[in-house]
């Protein structure tokens, strides 16, 4: 998968929040085989004041994808993105503009607005969006080259709530990298997303809050690989009735 000119071979992006400790986080990163880790930048961690934690993250050989988690307006997200660019010396930004504090669903109006401003400023955007096709088009029009539709609300672990819409999105944007972001709870959810033809999966809570985060990171990587290979291998069509898997031809003739 090619994203903004960078070749990405691991279809798993991992968030870095909520782990029991940075040591466990680093072990989970290794076990997942991820190449891209997301980092949340709150205002109090800007200006390098979160240095201790960020230094630990930099010890991994991963691309850091800062995000604007917790921003509720386009302006807040824009300001945070600029801080992140300075702090992490990257023009990649996972753009989140939250519209509702309970469901954490994206404010797609603020998202498109922020995307326009940041793309014009040279940012390479990873927008956290819904599965809405029109919003997707507007984000591409604003300069995004990747779309990150939600599977379910952030941290809910519900899996894909609307697989049909994600399938439609895949068909409608055949050449745009699509990354399912948020809502993955179990390895089977991640495999499901990949079976739909998604290019990658971004997850955090499902690993961080597992009883054994390192074991779950490994399981997710395996599931994502299985889902991807299953998609490429073109699964059979579903049928309503049984079809015998044992051929009639060559049966012993007992008559």
């Amino acid at each position, binding site marked *: 998968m090619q994203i903004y000119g960078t070749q990405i071979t691991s279809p798993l992006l991992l968030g870095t929040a909520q782990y*029991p*400790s*940075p*040591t*466990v986080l*680093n072990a989970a990163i290794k076990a997942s085989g991820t190449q891209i880790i997301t980092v949340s930048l*709150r*205002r*109090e*961690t800007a200006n390098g*004041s*979160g*240095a*201790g*934690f*960020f*230094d*630990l993250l930099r010890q991994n050989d991963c691309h850091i994808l800062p995000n604007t988690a917790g921003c509720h307006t386009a302006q807040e997200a824009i300001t945070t993105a600029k801080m992140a660019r300075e702090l992490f010396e990257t023009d990649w930004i996972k753009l989140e503009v939250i519209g509702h504090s309970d469901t954490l669903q994206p404010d797609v109006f603020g998202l498109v607005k922020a995307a326009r401003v940041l793309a014009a400023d040279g940012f390479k955007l990873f927008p956290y969006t819904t599965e809405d096709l029109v919003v997707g088009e507007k984000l591409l029009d604003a300069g995004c080259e990747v779309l990150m539709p939600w599977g379910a609300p952030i*941290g809910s672990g519900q899996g894909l709530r609307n697989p049909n819409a994600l399938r439609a999105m895949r068909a409608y944007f055949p050449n745009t990298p699509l990354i399912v972001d948020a809502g993955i709870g179990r390895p089977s959810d991640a495999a499901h997303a990949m079976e739909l033809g998604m290019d990658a999966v971004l997850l955090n809570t499902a690993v961080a*809050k597992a*009883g054994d985060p390192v074991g779950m990171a490994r399981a997710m990587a395996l599931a994502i690989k299985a889902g991807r290979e299953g998609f490429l291998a073109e699964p059979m069509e579903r049928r309503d009735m049984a079809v015998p898997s044992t051929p009639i031809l060559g049966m012993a003739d007992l008559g």
Partner: protein
Amino acid sequence: MITIAGAGVAGLACAWELARRGANVTVFEAGAAPSDNPCSWFAGGMLAPWCEGEIAEAEVVHLGAGAIKWWQNITHVETCGTLVVAPPRDRAELVRFAQRTDHHQRIDGEALARLEPALEGRFGQALFFKDEAHIDPRQALIDLTAAVQTLGVDIRYDTMAPQNVDVDCRGMASGVPGLRPIRGEMIVIEAPDVTLIRTVRLLHPRIPLYVVPRGDGVYMIGATMIESSSWRPITVRSMLELLGGAFALHPGFGEASVIETGVGLRPAFADNIPRLTQQGDTTHVNGLYRHGFLLAPALAGQLATQFFQEKTYENQSEWADA
């Protein structure tokens, strides 16, 4: 003579463990009083090793097991357990908490109301950690200061530690490599309309919090855990989340007065487990993270056994049972 830098809970606990074995101890403290150690002064004071096991490594639970007995030699300990509750829509958090911890019993709403009448009808289920306890960390710090002084320890306030001390307990100020600060913010409220006698933890996927009774209708609400070295006062967001959580626990907190807020930068190693480290002739006791009052006794015990070579450093369980 053994010299110690820092008179927060770690430095004082070390002084006590060394002095009670007959050592001649001097403690250097840059601040003027116990209240100048923000990590200790703004602590929650929960002696709750099993609850902490939800997120902490097993070693933290193990090291914390002896803390209640230790503090009972020093100060008043409220040994009435911890309650853990969750709003109905976050019931999954309670299930997860129960799976990740032990030493608790599941109780229903009626049993909860018998323990804490103020919570009657508010939660249908709870976890009760009956063997946990809490202290008032400020009183504990003052009592521990008096206790070590009674043992002959010389605490020199307003005095920078000399270049080479035997034991360094200054947290982030020690400059130990591998430490990072974790900002914690807390609020003290006075709520005469709400009566809780034990620590209550409210689970929430984003804003878990605890309420620790300080007596006389005063409660400490804490605490955030933010990867940051900023000393600025508590943010509006943190205050909203902590107070919103407290209000969800009991609406009576809505009528409370906010009487204090505080911020501390707690030192932690990458695995969030405290330890003794050696740099030259100095032994560092550091990385106590959010477990200062819970783990200082165990770390101080390790230090003393190292100094007096009574037992091996690894042999902590023997100490915990002592």
